[in-house]
């Protein structure tokens, strides 16, 4: 059973794209050597900024709701498990339905596989593989007190909006503490354009950014953006 006060925090702005999490995840034999973490480029054409994507472990998991074979289950500690092998029919419904794009269809095994927060480790009090290797701690596993102490300028948010659908998750995303936001609007960033080296997507409202102190961004970086 996962300890109640242990949480997973993702801070994409700290990600340096080193792929250590992907390698560490792939080494685990509970998912047959396949990495269950994605390392996504935010906007490959303009920036090298990457963002790690692990399962967010929704309170009401869409993947499990759409599963026609009843193969995806959520444990009492809030971890959404990978598909059960005897049940999964490899229909890819969950792959299409997940708002975060987490589940992966392994057609070789005819099985959906996804991040289960290293349940074999975390249920024994250990940290997930990716969080143990992340050099910049963009993936952090620990208590609320620890993260507050380590990241005084950030705060965790676990509410996401996809249009009118609100998704609450077990995994938290770190946002600037000055941004007075309660949720991350994911679909609003769909058509967002990045400028120069600065990656800024409309995931948080624009006025929230304006309210933020200019010290968050280096002045020279501001000047270089056209």
């Amino acid at each position, binding site marked *: 059973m996962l300890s109640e006060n242990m949480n997973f925090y993702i801070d994409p702005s700290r990600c340096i794209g080193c792929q250590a999490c992907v390698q560490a995840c792939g080494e685990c034999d509970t998912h047959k050597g396949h990495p269950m973490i994605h390392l996504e480029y935010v906007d490959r054409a303009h920036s090298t900024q990457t963002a790690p994507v692990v399962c967010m472990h929704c309170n*009401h*998991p869409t993947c*499990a*709701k759409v599963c026609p074979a*009843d193969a*995806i*289950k*959520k*444990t*009492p500690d809030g971890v959404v*498990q990978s598909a059960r092998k005897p049940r999964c029919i490899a229909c890819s419904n969950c792959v299409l339905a997940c708002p975060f794009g987490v589940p992966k269809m392994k057609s070789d095994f005819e099985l959906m596989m996804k991040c289960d927060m290293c349940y074999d480790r975390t249920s024994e009090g250990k940290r997930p593989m990716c969080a143990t290797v992340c050099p910049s701690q963009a993936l952090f596993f620990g208590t609320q007190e620890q993260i507050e102490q380590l990241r005084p300028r950030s705060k965790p948010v676990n509410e996401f909006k996809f249009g009118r659908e609100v998704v609450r998750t077990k995994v938290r995303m770190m946002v600037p503490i000055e941004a007075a936001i309660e949720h991350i609007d994911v679909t609003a960033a769909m058509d967002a354009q990045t400028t120069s080296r600065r990656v800024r997507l409309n995931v948080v409202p624009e006025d929230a950014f304006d309210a933020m102190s200019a010290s968050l961004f280096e002045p020279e970086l501001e000047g270089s953006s056209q």
Partner: protein
Amino acid sequence: MKFLFRKSPDAGESTPQWAKDFPINVEEDNYVARRDFTKFMVLTSFAFFAGQCWIGMQNVIRKKRGEPAMTAIADLKQVPVGTVLPFSYPGEHDPCLLIRRSETELVAYGQKCTHLSCAVTPQVEQLLCPCHEGCFDMTNGRPISGPPRRPLPLIELSVRGGTIYATGVQERTV
């Protein structure tokens, strides 16, 4: 037995029936209601009881039917050494093979493979079922390789005055 005494997790009033039948949470998924468990036990016991009755009835019917009648199959001259003659015994739909292995050795087996009832075909010293490559020994009808585990039924033969008669069937298990 802990699950028998656990309180039913409340899935909520607004939850539709299909969602209650296939819950997402492991706790609700593993929950077995006392009534469902009792129903399962009663029905399973009844199925076992009915099965036993069925087996008993089959035994009685088989005993009542008695031994199959002695039937003439062929003349000894019709089966030269090293040949095989197909025939039916005891009924029309019970195909058998009569095999003359030498001047004195005459054997007959049911032709239905004991695995899935395909017809076995005679090969050199073996009877081969082509469906799943099952092999039977030609001398005693016992399985050599492949999926069949039981030997072919042995047809008891007797030769009187140059005619071969089938006198009975030995259904063997080992």
